[in-house]
């Protein structure tokens, strides 16, 4: 990780294109949580030509389902879920304007080629540091699919959320470079 950059969400393709795999980011602004069930519902709604309650233009989607917030707290523990389960739904969302995704784990080739085509980035939050990440959420509200409980579509206001660029808009991946350097068996 080279230098820590500040980034505001939503962001444009031009800002995404300045990011490189391995860059450390502090993200602020408005992002959305959606995971397995919300992705399924969004893609079903889009197939029926319905309008979503989330504006996808320049949007950042955090693959997360938080723990319930205690009274007086904007958010409970929150962290990334493993991203590959959202891969089947992702290229369509990238075509519709999503510029950033926050998760953990590798992405499919289809997702990476769509990221390159649409100038999007894949950002990583460390898994399992959910108590620390909760403290970067300033406000939160459910936008849609409230019946899904932790899987509801939420809008979050975040301040200085610590992230790493896992895959940049050129397709460079931090997951390939790090393990290749420290592995002793070849791969």
């Amino acid at each position, binding site marked *: 990780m080279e230098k820590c950059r500040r980034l505001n969400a939503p962001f444009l393709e031009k800002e995404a294109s300045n990011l490189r795999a391995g860059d450390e980011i502090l993200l602020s602004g408005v992002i959305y949580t959606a995971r397995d069930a919300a992705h399924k519902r969004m893609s079903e709604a889009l197939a029926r030509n319905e309008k979503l309650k989330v504006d996808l233009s320049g949007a950042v989607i955090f693959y997360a389902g*938080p723990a319930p917030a205690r009274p007086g707290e904007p958010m409970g523990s929150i962290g990334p*879920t493993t991203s590959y389960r959202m891969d089947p739904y992702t290229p369509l969302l990238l075509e519709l304007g999503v510029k950033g995704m926050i998760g953990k784990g590798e992405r499919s080739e289809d997702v990476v080629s769509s990221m390159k085509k649409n100038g999007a980035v894949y950002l990583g939050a460390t898994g399992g540091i959910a108590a620390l990440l909760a403290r970067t959420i300033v406000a939160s509200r459910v936008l849609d699919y409230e019946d899904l409980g932790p899987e509801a579509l939420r809008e979050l206001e975040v301040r200085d959320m610590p992230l790493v660029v896992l895959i940049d808009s050129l397709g460079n991946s931090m997951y390939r470079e790090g*393990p290749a350097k420290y592995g*002793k068996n070849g791969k």
Partner: protein
Amino acid sequence: MRQVPAEQVTETVERLFIEANYHLPPDMVSVLEKGEREEQNPVAKSVFRTILDNRRVASEGKFPLCQDCGMAVVFLDMGQETAVTGGNLENAVNEGVRRAYDKGYLRKSIVGEPLFERKNTGDNTPAILHVRVVPGERVAITVAPKGAGSENMSALAMLSPAAGPEGVERFVIETVRKAGPNPCPPIVVGVGVGSDFEGVAELAKRALLRPAESSSSHPRYAALEAELLRKINDLGIGAAGYGGTVTALGVNIEWAPTHIACMPVAVNLCCHANRHCSAEI
């Protein structure tokens, strides 16, 4: 015959799940601190530091360690000289889970039917309950909330006996290699060898309950654990998958007798939040 009220089982299960979700067990803290010292990649080293910071914040009791507060796995050893009174044992355990996930502000992550509807049950029940009837009066309960990121990367194989220890090694290492960053490394690797198809999976899960730095009491299995740990760390996956010299914090193998034609092996991976907590009634 000794009598234990069902309500006491409920209260114990409730207390243990809240404890497990906010307080990382001491064996995990100790291997994480050791991992932080030994890690060579500065980026992965800082992930270790963040994990330890997170654990300190969680222990204040406001935010659970991880948003994935897990499936509610319960191991219950029931002394055969003891009777549960005033209620059904399974209901008592589920009521404890229900109360813990409500009062502890823990995420409810269970869907009632897995394939078509996938509707959240809303209270994190039912628990996955493993009951063993044991001699004596003792009732021992261990809870182990288990997150899905690492559970999804677990695997089972019915190997041929001819595959030998090398076959087991290959399967375990391949499972960890394929999992890569997904199970939230640094991980603990629970391995079951022997028994039958469903028995070997339970052995692997029980192996995760052993302290991460402990060794099998059988010297040849202990040697295999050490060898596997070395080879897994040679994969270079590292904390969070960012590359590094510490990918696993421990490898625990549990084994059991098996059929003359069988050599089942199961690998149950657990993230760095290997949560488990026990009590006796």
